[in-house]
């Protein structure tokens, strides 16, 4: 039997008692979102995996204990936990082992990390087809990791102009790659 639950209903289901299927669904649903947050802030796949595990276990712990009083705010709770956990990770705090011992880490094994694969040759043609300045902006930004100020200095344009060029290039690349905006 299939049933559909919103985030709030899922949170209530977990809070109302031990429900392994609901807990597994929480991991399936939230793990990719938390991992994206981790990739953005930690810039490391392993660290993002660690963050995901830690945040979801903390969330599960809170739901089981009935500490989330407004289930419709599950996403906000998870985001807040992400922020706190990244701060903890940066401070070097290690709650993870204790939490893992308490709850186990097997649930994450069910989660698929689906990063899209790009056609490399097509991307080469698409990047080559950009205007010179747009290509320069995306390469300096994504490869050189130059700031907008550095790119602006090289191109002799304003930082706002660099943003416009970057946005235009990204939209054109997605269009060229056949990705719907």
């Amino acid at each position, binding site marked *: *039997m*299939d*049933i*559909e*639950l*919103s*985030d709030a*209903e899922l949170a209530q*289901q977990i809070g109302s008692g031990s429900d392994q*299927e609901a807990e597994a*669904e929480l991991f399936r*649903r*939230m793990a*990719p*979102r*938390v991992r*994206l*947050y981790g*990739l*953005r802030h930690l810039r490391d796949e392993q660290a993002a995996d660690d963050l995901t595990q830690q945040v979801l276990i903390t969330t599960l712990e809170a739901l089981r204990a009935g500490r989330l009083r407004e289930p419709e705010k599950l*996403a*906000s709770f*998870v*985001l807040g936990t*992400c922020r706190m956990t990244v701060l903890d990770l940066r401070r070097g705090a290690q709650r993870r082992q204790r939490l893992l011992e308490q709850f186990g880490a097997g649930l994450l094994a069910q989660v698929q990390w*689906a*990063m*899209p*694969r*790009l056609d*490399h040759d097509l*991307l*080469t043609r698409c*990047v080559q087809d950009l*205007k*010179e*300045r747009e*290509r*320069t902006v995306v*390469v*300096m*930004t*994504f*490869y*050189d990791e*130059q700031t907008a100020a*550095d790119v602006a200095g*090289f*191109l*002799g344009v304003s930082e706002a102009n660099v*943003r416009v060029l*970057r*946005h235009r290039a*990204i*939209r054109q*690349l*997605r269009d060229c*790659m056949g*990705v719907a*905006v």
Partner: protein
Amino acid sequence: MTIRNRSDRATCSNPIDAAVLADYWLGVLTGAEEEAVEEHLLDCDQCGARLREVIALAEGIRSLAREGRLRMVVSDAFVKRAAEEGLRVRVYAPPPGGGVQCTVTAEDDILIARLAANLRGEKRVDLCICDERGVEQFRLPDIPVHTRANSVAYQESITFWKAAPTTKMIARLVTIDEAGGERLLGEYTFNHTRSLPGRAAE
């Protein structure tokens, strides 16, 4: 019993533009903008999927740059970064009006032509790549040049030159005035000798 997400079949009512997601990935949004994007992403798998596409695009561009496959004008910071990453950078710098003997080896990763020219005050500069007879093959219009710079660093495709036969390439920097007239700033000849074993590409 299988539990599914009720919102899976719904369309995001307020999708975040891919360019804004790229700004988020680069960390250039303001605090309030970043907070709004993160709240949305924690609640929306469709925008999350779009962010994954943006990340894949960013990683793809990074790989292309590392592989030296792009034909483009690059900054000194690019050349420095490539060398710091352990990439082997081969640079040829013929004088204006002159030529240079050149080759690439299997170990080379990045190929740079440094074209010296007086670029002071030039509003628009094009780079023309010509065959051995001087016939233009393609042009990079309005290349980024610093008005105080005295050279342009042009990256040629290392994969192309690893496969190329012994041949000659001519690069020309030209400036375009407001009436569309062209003036030569410098011409540079690269006499490429194939040094890699095996058959060259046609």
